[in-house]
Structures are given as C-alpha cells and as structure tokens.
C-alpha cells in the first residue's frame, strides 16, 4: 500500500518534472525539491516499518526497490534542478513561445520590423503580465484571448493539436518497424543463383576471403 503510494508519488513527480523542464519555472522547481524530501521521509518511514516486520526477505526486496527509487529521485534532482529562471529569462522564454502578429511570421522577440506596432505592444503586455506575477499559463491564455490561437508559436498539447506532435514520432516508429522488417527480409532472402562456373565458398572461408581482400585493398 505504502509502496504503491510512493510509486504514484514518483510517477506524479516525473510527470510534473517533464512539464517543468519545458517551462523552467522557479516556483515549480522548489515544489519539486519539497516533494523529493517528502518522498525521502516517506521512504524512511516505510523502511523502519518493514524492517521491524517478520518478513525480512520481502523487506530487503522492498528496501532495494526504495533505494533504487531514492537514487533515481536524487539523480533526477541533480539533473534538473538548476538555478531558478530570472524574470528576464521568463520574458525571453515566453517571448519565444509566441509569434508577432504584424504578419511578419516571426517569433515575437525576433520581429525587428522597423517601427512594428504589434511587437512593441505585445512585448510591453508581456512585461506587464510578468511584473504582475502571473504564471506562464495565465499569460499565454491572456494572449490567446486577445490575439487568437495563432499567437502561440507551436501547437498546444491539447485536443486535436496533439496530433501535430504525435504524427512525426508515429511515422518514425512505423518507419523503424518497416526498416527492421525490410532488413530481416533481405537477410532471409534466398541466395541468388550465380552464373555457371562461379562457386561461392562456405561461410567461414568466404569471411576469410573478404578479410583478405579488405586487408589487401584496405580502402
């Protein structure tokens, strides 16, 4: 029971960690660290209880599992928890997740049209929202409400837009499956017949011939 709770905790932690890696928000990072320590304390409590029970072997197994989980968590913390993003970094990040609406087709912070009214206004709006303390989602939602869904520079991970993200990886997976199947079918293909008088030596001898040919030409 406790173990499954911890697994759930771990799953939740990892899922949230993934989102955080994309958004790089300082507050969420602190929450992650807090959760890590809670998980560590939880792990220690379970360990005490299990060690006192009669099922020592089962306990050892669980201890190993927990140790592994704790190690994973520690590694994850070291991997992902870095310096908290500054307001400038958030401005830079959010400004690169939105498009300028002047028709230039460029990312908001990269529109350099001389005297562009749209990007100037949008940058000021973004700065104001950051100063107000809004989180990233709220800021993006505000922009979508004002400028429409095309203001976001990439499809969101919601509804039909998910298809945009899934398709390339689906094609890659299908392509790999097809390529593996093709290579296997080539390998299983019967040896083609050769012209009369040409004999292929058996496997080992053929390898030796090849090695010799490569050594002699070596090119």
């Amino acid at each position, binding site marked *: 029971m406790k173990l499954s709770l911890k697994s759930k905790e771990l799953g939740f932690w990892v899922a949230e960690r993934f989102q955080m890696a994309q958004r790089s928000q300082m507050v969420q990072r602190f929450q992650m660290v807090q959760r890590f320590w809670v998980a560590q304390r939880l792990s220690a409590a379970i360990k005490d209880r299990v060690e006192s029970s009669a099922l020592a072997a089962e306990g050892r197994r669980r201890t190993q599992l927990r140790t592994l989980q704790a190690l994973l968590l520690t590694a994850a913390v070291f991997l992902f928890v870095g310096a908290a993003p500054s307001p400038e970094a958030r401005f830079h990040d959010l400004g690169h997740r939105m498009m300028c609406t002047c028709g230039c087709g460029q990312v908001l912070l990269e529109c*350099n049209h001389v*005297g562009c009214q749209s990007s100037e206004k949008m940058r000021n709006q973004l700065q104001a929202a950051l100063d107000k303390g809004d989180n990233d989602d709220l800021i993006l939602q505000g922009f979508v409400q004002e400028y429409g869904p095309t*203001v*976001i520079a990439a*499809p969101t991970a919601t509804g039909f837009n998910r298809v945009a993200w899934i398709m390339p990886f689906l094609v890659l997976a299908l392509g*790999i499956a097809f390529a593996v199947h093709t290579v296997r079918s080539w390998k299983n293909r019967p040896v083609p*017949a050769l012209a009369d008088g040409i004999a292929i030596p058996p496997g080992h001898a053929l390898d030796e011939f090849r090695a010799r040919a490569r050594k002699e030409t070596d090119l």
Partner: protein
Amino acid sequence: MLALGLSIYSFGAGLLSLFGRDAAHARLGETARRAGIATFIIVLLAAFILVAAAFNDDFSIAYIYHHSNRDLPVAYKFAVLWSGQEGSLLFWSLLLAGYGFVLRLRYKTDQRLFAYASVIIAAVQVFFLLILNFAAHPFALEQGMLPPDGAGLNPLLQYPEMVIHPPMLYLGYVGFTIPFAFALGALIMHYPGEKWIHITRRWTMVTWCFLTIGVFLGAHWAYAVLGWGGYWGWDPVENASLMPWLTGTAFLHSVMMQEKRGMLKVWNMALVFATFLLSMLGTFLTRSGVISSVHAFAQSSIGTWFIVFIAITTAVCVFFLVKNLPYLKSEHKLESLVSRESSFLFNNLLLLVVCFTILWGTFFPIISEWVQGHKVTVGPPFFNRVAVPVALLLLLLTAVGPLLAWRKTSIESLKRNFLFPAIGSVAVGLMMVLFGVKPWEDPSYFYAVMAAILSALVMFTVISEFVRGGRVIAGKSGQNIFAAMLHLCRRNTRRYGGYIVHFGVALVIIGILGTPFNKEVEKEMAYGDKINIGPYTLVCQSYTQDDNPNYANEWAIINVFRGGKQVTTMYPERRFYKASGQPQTLPRIYPSFRQDLFLVTDLYLVYEGKNDTTGRPIIKAHLNPLVPWIWIGLIIMVFGTVVALVPSTVPVPVTLAVPVRTEAHAGAGD
C-alpha cells in the same frame, strides 16, 4: 506563345515517335528533339527581352513597372528577372529549357532513353509555358497612363546575394526534373540494368550542389539582411527548399545501394519522384500564398495550376510504378544486419522522417483549419523539438555508416575503426562540460552537447578514414602521408568526396549548435554610450544620415573594444527606399576569427531605428557563437561535391552477381 507551340510539338511528336522504331518514327523523334532545342532558343530570347526592358526602364510592361525603377543599380536589374512571379516563372522555364538543351545535345549516349526523358521534360516545359502564356504573362502591359518611374525592387532583394540565391535555388529545383525524367523514362520503357542511374548521377549531384548552395545562401541572406540575428526561421518557403534537399540527399545515398547491390529499385524511383514533386510543391508554396510566409514577394491564383499539375504527375508516377513493379525486384540478399546496406536504409528513413516532419508542420495549419475550424501556428519551437532529435540520430549514422562494410561488418573491424573517433568525440563532450556547458540545466544545452559529440564523431571518422587509407598507400608507394591521401582521394573521388561533404555537414552542425548560447542587448545610444556584451564593449562614436537617388539612409558609427583594445568599427544602417517607400535595416557582422579561431563568434549589430524624441539610434547587439562555421561548412560541402564529380583516376571495378534463372532456382524467386 511560339515557345509553347514548339514545346507542345516537342512533346507530341516525341511521344508519337516512341511508339515505333522504323525510319519514319525516328525522323519524327528527330524533329521533336530539334523543336526542344528551338524552345530553349525562344525562351532565352524572351528572358533576354525582359531583362533588356528592365535596363531600358520600359515601364509600359507591368512587370518592369512593379519590380524596377530608374535608379536601381545595374546588378539588380538582372535580378528583376526572378524578383517577381511572372519573371521567375520565365526564369524557371528558361533553366528547364537550358537543361533540356544540354540533354538533347547529348542524346547519342543512349538515344532511346534520352528520347523518353526528352518527352517528359517537354511535358513539364509545356506546363510552365502554359502558365506563362495564360496565367502569369511577363509581358502584360501596364494599364492607364504610362508611369514616369517604376515602383522599385523589394528592398529585401537589394542585396548582392539575392542576385545569386534564387538562380542557385532554381537550378536545384529545376535540375531535379532531369533525374525525374530519366527515372520515369527508364520505368516506362523497362530499361534494363542501372545505366540510367549512371547517366543521371552527375546531373543529380550537380543539381543537389546547386540546391545546397541555394538553401545556404538563403540562410545567409536571412542572416545578413533580415536583421533578426538568426538564419533559419522554419518559414514555409524555407521549409519548401529543405524538403527536396532532404529527399535528394536520401536519393544520393540510396542510389549506391542500387548501383552496387541491385537493391532498393522501387525506393529509388519513389525518391526521385518525391524529390521532383516536392520541388514543384516548393514553387507552389512560394507562389500561391496558400500558407503565410515572409517570402511574400509574389502571390497569386496560379496555385490551382500547380495543384492540378502535381496531381497529374503524382497519378502518372504511381500508375507506372505500380504497373512496372515486377521489373524492379531486387536480386541481392543481406548477410548481416550490421552492414552498410542497413545503415543506408536507416539513413534514408531518418532523412524522410525529417522531411515528413517539415511537410507535416508546414501543412498542419491548413489541416487544423479543416478539422478545428481555426488555424494554429507551427513555428520554430515545434520544428526544433521534433526535428532536432531525429537530425541527431541522422548525424550518428553519418558517423557510423562509412565505417560499415557492404554485406557484413565484423565487430572487430568496427571496434578497430571506431575506437579513436569515439574516444575523441567523448573527449569533446567532456571538454564542453568542463568549460561550463551543463547539459542537465536546459534541453537546448543537452542537444548542443550531443550535437558537438556527434559532429566530432563524424569529423574524426572522416579523418581516420583518410589517414588509414593514406597510410596504406604511403606504405606501398613511399609517398608522404598527405600526398598519399591526395592520391587516395583521386583514386576514388566519389567516396572521398562524399567524406569531405560529411565533414562539411559536421561543421555546419557545429555552427548551428552555438544557438543556445546566443546573447543580445538592446540600447538607445547617445554619443559615447557603451554596451557591454560578452567580451566586447561597444562605444557609440557618432550617428549620421545620407541620401542618394535610390534610398535615404541613417547609420551609427560604433567602435568595438575587446580587452581594452579597439578591434574594429562597425556601421549598422537603416535605409529608406524611395521608389517602394519601404524601410530596411542592414545589420553589420564582425566574426572574431583573429581572437577566437575555433570558437569564432559573430558580433552582429542592428540599427533598430531612431527614438523620435531624442533623435538617438537604438542599437541591438547580438553575440552569435560559432555561426561562421556554417558558411565554412557550406564551402567544404561544395568542395566535396566537386571532388566527387571529378572522375577517379583509376576506375573502381564493381562486381555484381548476375542472377541466372535455371530450373533448379526457378522456384526460389528473388
């Protein structure tokens, strides 16, 4: 109209001549060939007249009025030919006729196959001439009063590279018509063997080289003119040029499978067809305006013409491919999964997945509109997240592939050949971490470190292959190692030219991986004001303005200091073109080769505008590490392609096992 008539004749008569082999049909075929040659002369004349009209400021021609003006510099008057829709379609038609002209002169190589290819080229030519005559006439007259001066050339196009970039790109786009024509011709006539591949190999490589130059010049133009500090924005039109490049690259690799092993015959046909169709799609995207793009130089309703043409061509290709599948069976068997054949297959797969991702991302806004009722933007964040990981896998294969032998690779030889490059590349990664790049801090840093490791791996494998081969030759001939490597390269130009291209690609990737480390600062500058960015201190010495008949301009004079010593002076500028009434920024770039060499960084200054209240310039400074390696990488890629085009001094014999259908093996199939 005359050219259209001639090309229709060339197509019709050529097609009829293919139905018979007697003297009458041969004479008909000869007239078709000559009509094709005449088409080239007429289209060349038309293009010459249009350029002459630009030089004579003949604004009674609407095209000249809209794309030129009296004070336009001479070089850009040549560029008028491809700066607008009608002119660029005429230019396309001219290039196609030019390619066809060369092909028709060399028809004796293989008269029958060349006749088929010639007919297919004539069909494509007819399409373009139909558009020119009925949808986008370059010689249409300006209505109403004769204007005293033209509306001027788009300021974005008034840059030296713009005189070269479109012709290169078009030579690439149009050039793929030739391998397409030969492939389709060979398929229709059940051409035996792989001779059509040998015939088209050089055409394909030259075309690929032009397309590569075109794509990179476009990127350099974006970097040096658009002034946003980047070189690739995943704009639909940029994507359109990259897609045929990717399939063309896949074809250049997979074609070796067919030449050396008789495999992937259907696949190669499909790749040639896809490359040609993607070239057409590129033109369609550029010219139709169906997808919003920064390349809004010319948009009109000719999209329908292209859709119809692409649909018909696709149908023809699919029909003949399916009909002739039995003629495209592979003969050979693979002995090991770890072999060059497998690496080529996966290389093709990854190139095509990147191509699909770009195609998918480019068209997803339209799909979204159909499904959800509203468009979404598919911009750089999407392509960077999806295409970059696949591109890294591709880079890994670029490194490993050349080390794998045909048929079968022993683990020992792989270890022997791979050890030095692997150690070297891991050392590069460790050095990056030691110098403060923390891949765990940000996904972009992670990708940068991985890209550095894999690029180093590619470069070390190329170097080790040259050194290994050079040592063998040096050992046998007594030459020094460098002379031996040159000798080695001359003996198999195709292989070692290919390696040089791979080296160039690795350098390009190194240039790109600097992106996450870019810095930028923007400031309004008074006299003596400073900007500190990276190792540089920028001091505003002055700002001023000027005027000439073509444009008015204002610029700042910025002294650049490094370590307390002045290294250069830069003049970021903004122009206001009088004829078109459009402003344009001109960034200035200072690459730090003298100070950094390997870690060369571009200092990139943009004159953003002027504060109307204070009258002071607003300067934006970018620091873009490693970018110059992209352009050096391109030069090396082009050099490698040229090496691969040079015939080898000693012919490399290729032995193919010839399948013989005996009774004993008849049931085994192939």
